[in-house]
């Protein structure tokens, strides 16, 4: 099989007369961090929304290559993308369950697995041993991730009470709880200070290297993008204007023009 994890071909998204994504083709490799950058309004989040089933793309195809199958992402509608295709995402404005505890947030992410184990609630009502065991396992997984981001001590506090940086990290590890093949992060470094973004870089590299999960990243913070991405896709007005490694991107004249404008 090829080493491509995600193949996006000729993706087009129209909102009425507005062409948000125009014939976009790119791919993301396995075990790599692929960044999508571009000025505001370039259509980055729209790409995510198409990939994760929140929008139905007007045209084009999106394929996710697992070990031995090739999934057409267009065939999955909203929640099934996470449940069956294994594409997880986070949001530009953090979407935790603020009035539920940190641990509960992690448990909701393992809902489908636990729902099966609870025999659609019937077995769970009577505390069947198999369900209790599965629930323990789910707690172990939650604890594993909370240890990594250093939130184990606050596991029983409301997620909404966490500091902003911790909420960002929690949202990422919560998405990891569904065991995704591809993790889509929408501006995870927005609003973080220098130290927090350094922590974030570490976490993302850990996910990439240890968990072998491909990461698709939208980011404005160039310190994050340049430091950890293996591959950069630059969008402007819904079109891909450049694709290459971070070093190549820095030097590209098209990219500089898109961000800073041309003098004419």
């Amino acid at each position: 099989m090829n080493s491509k994890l995600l193949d996006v071909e000729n993706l087009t998204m129209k909102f009425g007369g507005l062409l948000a994504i125009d014939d976009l083709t790119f791919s993301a490799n396995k075990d790599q961090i692929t960044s999508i950058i571009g000025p505001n309004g370039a259509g980055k989040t729209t790409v995510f929304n198409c990939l994760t089933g929140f929008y139905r793309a007007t045209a084009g195809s999106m394929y996710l290559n697992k070990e031995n199958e090739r999934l057409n992402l267009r065939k999955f509608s909203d929640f099934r993308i996470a449940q069956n295709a294994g594409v997880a995402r986070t949001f530009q404005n953090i979407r935790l369950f603020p009035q539920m505890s940190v641990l509960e947030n992690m448990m909701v992410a393992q809902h489908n697995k636990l729902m099966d184990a609870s025999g659609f609630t019937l077995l769970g009502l009577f505390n069947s041993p198999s369900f209790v065991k599965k629930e323990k396992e789910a707690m172990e997984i939650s604890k594993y991730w909370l240890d990594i981001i250093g939130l184990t001590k606050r596991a029983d506090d409301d997620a909404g009470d966490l500091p902003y940086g911790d909420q960002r990290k929690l949202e990422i590890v919560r998405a990891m709880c569904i065991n995704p093949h591809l993790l889509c992060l929408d501006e995870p470094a927005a609003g973080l200070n220098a130290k927090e973004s350094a922590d974030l870089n570490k976490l993302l590299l850990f996910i990439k290297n240890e968990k072998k999960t491909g990461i698709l990243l939208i980011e404005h913070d160039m310190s994050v993008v340049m430091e950890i991405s293996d591959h950069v896709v630059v969008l402007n007005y819904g079109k891909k204007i450049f694709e290459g490694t971070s070093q190549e991107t820095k030097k590209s004249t098209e990219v500089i023009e898109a961000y800073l404008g041309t003098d004419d």
Partner: protein
Amino acid sequence: MRKNFLKFSVKDSLFTGLIALALFGPIVGLRTVAKNEILIVQPKWLIVILIVAVCAIGRFLINLYVFKRDQKLGNQSTIGKSIGNFLDTKGTQIAISAIIFSVIFPFLPFTDRYLMDIAIMMLTYIMLGWGLNIVIGLAGLLDLGYVAFYAVGAYSYALFAIHFGWSFWICLPLAGIFAAMFGVLLGFPVLRLRGDYLAIVTLAFGEMIRILLLNWYELTKGPDGLTGIPRPSFFGLPFKSFPDEGEQTFHTFFGLEYNPMQRIIFLYYLILVLALITNLFTIKIRKLPIGRAWEALREDEIACKSLGVNPRNTKLTAFAIGAMFGGFAGSFFATRQAFISPESFTFIESAIIVAIVVLGGMGSQTGVVLSTVFLIGLIEVFRDFESYRMIAFGGAMVLIMIFRPRGILATRKPTIILNNKD
């Protein structure tokens, strides 16, 4: 400072008097009387002046003695806060003592028929509150038509019992299943709706069911209602003063004197058990994946989708299970009254149940009990004042909202704990 404050208080109380005049002037002051077959307006200014004076002076006194010097808003609700803290920390103890009290209640010396009837009514409302708490408190779906499921439960129980002669214990689960089916029926069209829009559609659904019951004369006897619904029996032993030839009844079987209170006490325990089952079920299901998914759905539906939680199934189960308990309560209502008509299932019932859940603190089981006792109790205490009792009802709601804006018991305990600190 002090002088300014006095000046402010005088001004404030005069303004209050003005508002009172504007409100009570037309309402109380002008009365139409029929004299010689024509309507004339008869002013009653004395009583208006009296009311206005009471309002103005009362406001002045409140200004002087309650608000006092420091006018910080936070200080006003210290009493509310301390009551709240007490309730929040002692929730479990309150719950246990309430259960013990309700078990021995029928045998307390001061308990009479009237108190028993009120207690049964309160327990019915508590059960409905607990059922609706699943839909509103946990899943966050504002359902203003809950009484529809109560009605479906009551009517399906009544129809099964009248036409097929099945016993209470067969009709009860059937009524629950029927109500749950109607819950799903309501759930499907409103899957995409949220907040205000959901509330409007559920309200309409409640009215539709009532109007259906009113007009489907062949089945429901319309406004005449269904009569002769069989009374419940104690596992086959009926409560009758004069048993038929060779028939075992409750009092002959246990060798007791016949007393109409026996049936009332049985009904009381029946609804107590039904309500406690509702409660235990909710407490348990909150800790299961489905319960957690309900709460997650209340918090953020989009995040739920991104984690692979199926919002359709999750919402429908919430509607169905909430409706099922409404149906159980409905069948109890039918067997207790022995007569039901669409008049018992008006919108005001839904509104009261929603008020109970919201004022109790969304999602709080003990809160539902407290607010039921408070609200229904007040309505009963003020029954002699006839229509003025609704003022007491409204006043109670206002008080709760001032002192406990998020409901009587607002704190939420996590459903699962990682670090056992205490």
